[in-house]
């Protein structure tokens, strides 16, 4: 970090220069990779938001002609795909990267180069899936890509043409690429959390964000293979003419739905648990109280992850699975509300009789509790198959999952951004602009999504590009559209604040919020090696032990006070070299390997229509991938 170390001549001349484009392309520093994730995911968040604005403009009034039906299909498909895979998941990944090593007292992740590889694969996969919208060729089969509707028989040929449309090909290839990124990252973080904790950091002393992230990594490694298999089948149907989803050949039209939702429901928890982790850091800090029921929070997080694999078919009540399957999945869905409800009560109990400071991150965290509860309650409503049959595929469901994902994930991520921005950049985000952002965001969100409950219950279906007047939907749609415009203003305020505060924000210092966990024991932004001396941990809130042991009511009773000398904030800035700490070399080999992977999938996309060209590109990509991998694995890390 340029602000920290006075560059030595060697550092400037050598490959470990700390600034410039190359230093970012070749970085293996988890903090820099986290920053790359943050900026990239925020850019995709804006793109996804722009798509939402166009959707809402088209739906503002009955029979609008703002976009065509074909464009509308592309817009809602890309809005969902972008927000799920390119915005919320990578925003969580930004926090995984930046925070996990800092929270567990490590100097980096277990596999720094694999970490860089994950980021580059995400970036290129995101571009592969997003770019076609500029050519009106974006995926148009919904973010769930239901086969057989996404097979060539139904989405392959444009009207009046004989050439297969490539729209869904980009989606199929892009999601496979993004899956590689998520899996590689998950193996990395599982290893990091299991194996790189500082001395004394037992599992039950880990910060709650790290705990929730730990659960998410297991969900990722177990949930991504089924969708990968579903995508491989779909790709083979589209490219090689296999029969996996061809009903005429005897295929089961529900195969895709099962494989997709076995992934898709755990994915919901992949999106929400990191936000739960972030607010579990924010709430204790600004309530000046330890998290209420830490153990139960951990167990309920694990329980959510576990039950998350047993509820997938509640997305399929309307397909006619029969009474037995419906009952089992209904029951499981009701069960999963229990650990989720436990979390909500524990957060409230954390704030109860605390010394609450209503900072911007605290407001976002409280907003998550309130908004997620609304989304959670409408979720439990869907667990009843008869009720679900009324609500499925209506705007009521759209309202439900936006309360969960916007009211839950996005609110939690904003809480995290306001909370950790000082740690990442060394400066505060402006509090006044933050308050404006919060209230506009809060009001805009409710104005957008609350009316959808009503239009949904009045029967307005999802994914229609326009509607006739006189069905009682007009007012609710107009409200939702105005709400979206309010969100545009809110987001603009945030972006202005985010960019401006990097240079103009108030200087934060190492521990600006009087927080309790390890990441606050080091300077902001942290030096490249994080900890000059690896600390020894004696409790869940080591920094509070130092300031005032009475703050920390560690219920385990086994806590030994942490060694104060380990946790003194470092005032002097040293380079890793000066301290004799080995750091990973910067290297662009992961970047090269990631390019190989994406080129390979690009070749596969071309293969159907241009065999020779496609095969050549595919083999070139494969050669780059294998060559890059060999070069990477046979060169030393540090």
């Amino acid at each position, binding site marked *: 970090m340029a602000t920290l170390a006075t560059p030595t001549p060697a550092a400037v001349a050598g490959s470990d220069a700390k600034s410039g484009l190359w230093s970012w392309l070749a970085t293996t520093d988890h903090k820099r990779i986290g920053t790359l994730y943050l900026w990239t995911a925020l850019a995709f968040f804006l793109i996804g938001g722009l798509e939402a604005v166009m959707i809402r403009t088209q739906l503002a009034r009955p029979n609008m002609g703002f976009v065509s039906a074909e464009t509308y299909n592309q817009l809602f498909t890309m809005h969902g795909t972008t927000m799920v895979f390119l915005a919320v998941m990578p925003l969580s990944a930004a926090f995984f990267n930046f925070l996990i090593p800092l929270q567990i007292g490590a100097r980096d992740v*277990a596999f720094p180069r694999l970490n860089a590889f994950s980021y580059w694969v995400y970036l290129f996969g995101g571009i592969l899936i997003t770019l076609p919208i500029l050519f009106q060729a974006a995926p148009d089969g919904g973010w769930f890509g239901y086969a057989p509707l996404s097979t060539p028989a139904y989405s392959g040929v444009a009207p009046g043409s004989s050439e297969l449309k490539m729209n869904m090909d980009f989606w199929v290839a892009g999601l496979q690429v993004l899956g590689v990124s998520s899996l590689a990252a998950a193996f990395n973080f599982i290893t990091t959390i299991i*194996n790189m904790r500082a001395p004394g950091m037992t599992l039950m002393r880990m910060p709650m964000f790290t705990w929730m992230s730990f659960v998410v990594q297991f969900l990722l490694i177990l949930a991504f293979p089924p969708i990968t298999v579903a995508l491989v089948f779909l790709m083979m149907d589209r490219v090689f003419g*296999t029969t996996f989803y061809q009903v005429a050949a*005897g*295929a089961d039209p529900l195969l895709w739905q099962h494989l997709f939702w076995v992934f898709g429901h755990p994915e919901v928890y992949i999106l929400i648990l990191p936000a739960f982790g972030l607010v579990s850091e924010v709430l204790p800090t600004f309530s000046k109280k330890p998290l209420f029921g830490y153990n139960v929070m951990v167990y309920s997080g694990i329980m959510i992850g576990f039950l998350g694999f047993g509820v997938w078919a509640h997305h399929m009540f309307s397909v006619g699975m029969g009474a037995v399957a419906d009952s089992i999945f209904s029951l499981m869905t009701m069960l999963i509300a229990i650990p989720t409800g436990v979390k909500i009560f524990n957060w409230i109990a954390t704030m109860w009789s605390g010394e609450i400071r209503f900072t911007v991150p605290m407001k976002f965290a409280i907003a998550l509790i309130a908004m997620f509860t609304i989304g959670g309650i409408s979720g439990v409503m869907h667990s009843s198959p008869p009720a679900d049959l009324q609500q499925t595929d209506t705007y009521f469901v759209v309202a439900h999952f936006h309360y969960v994902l916007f009211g839950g994930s996005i609110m939690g991520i904003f809480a995290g951004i306001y909370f950790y921005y000082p740690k990442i950049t060394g400066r505060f985000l402006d509090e006044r602009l933050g308050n404006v952002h919060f209230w506009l965001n809060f009001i805009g969100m409710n104005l957008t999504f609350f009316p959808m409950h009503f239009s949904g219950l009045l029967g307005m279906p999802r994914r229609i590009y326009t509607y006739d007047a006189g069905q009682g939907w007009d007012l609710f749609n107009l409200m939702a559209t105005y709400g979206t415009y309010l969100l545009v203003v809110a987001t603009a305020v945030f972006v202005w604040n985010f960019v401006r505060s990097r240079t103009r924000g108030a200087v934060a210092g190492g521990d600006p919020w009087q927080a309790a966990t390890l990441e606050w024991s080091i300077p902001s932004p942290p030096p490249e090696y994080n900890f000059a001396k690896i600390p020894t941990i004696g409790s869940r809130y080591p920094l509070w032990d130092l300031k005032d042991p009475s703050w920390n009511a560690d219920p385990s009773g086994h806590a030994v006070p942490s060694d104060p000398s380990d946790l003194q904030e470092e005032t002097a800035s040293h380079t890793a070299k000066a301290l004799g700490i080995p750091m990973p*070399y910067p290297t662009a080999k992961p970047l090269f390997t990631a390019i190989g992977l994406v080129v390979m999938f690009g070749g596969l996309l071309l293969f159907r229509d241009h065999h020779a060209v496609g095969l050549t590109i595919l083999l070139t990509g494969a050669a780059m991938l294998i060559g890059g991998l060999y070069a990477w694995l*046979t*060169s030393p890390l540090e």
Partner: protein
Amino acid sequence: MASHAAAASHGAVAGHDDGHAHHHHTTTGLDHRKIAIWAFIGSECMLFASLISTYLIYKGKSLVGPFPHTEYVDAAGKVFTPILDIPVTSASTFVLLMSSLAMVLALQAVQLKGQPLPAGAGWWTRAQRSSQLWLGMTALLGACFLGFQAYEFTSFVREGLTLKTNLFGSTFFTLTGFHGAHVTVGVLWLMSLLWIDRTRGLTPKDELVVDICALYWHFVDVVWIAIFTLIYLIQ
């Protein structure tokens, strides 16, 4: 990075590493790579579970033949015999299982490197010490299995079963093809280890690198046992 040439050869030792556990203390005492490979294998279980489930869901659902275990006569009166050749695949299964044995011996040979041979050691004791022999043998048996698979695939295509023919063709070729791809990666991995062994020589310090490859290899074998039982043996 040229100045690190000496270290570079050390990196080759580490082989498939990104981890630096051999320098540093870890929480569990295990190397990072060992934990990562188990997480990877856990994920792979879900991959093959999804593939095998799909095969089983579509079992017997094909509208036209050839079929795996039963005869099929098409509209033109052409007769297709049951397509699976169980004796041949039993042989290839045996070859793959023997490769796991060779893998175990390869790991043992690396662990025993540098230890003096007991006096009057026979040919078998000597052979047990040759990591190159057993790494090569494992790769060779793996390649043999792939040869069987290539033969099987081409003869099926000749008999009229392709990816496009029916649900059986689509699911069979995809499932066994995925497994074959895993065996191919394993063979390349083993050949890389063999190459390192021949150029620089593996030592007991490299046990972990061989151990990780062995875990992967045994996993791929276990998957084949499931595939062989569910697809070939159960009618």
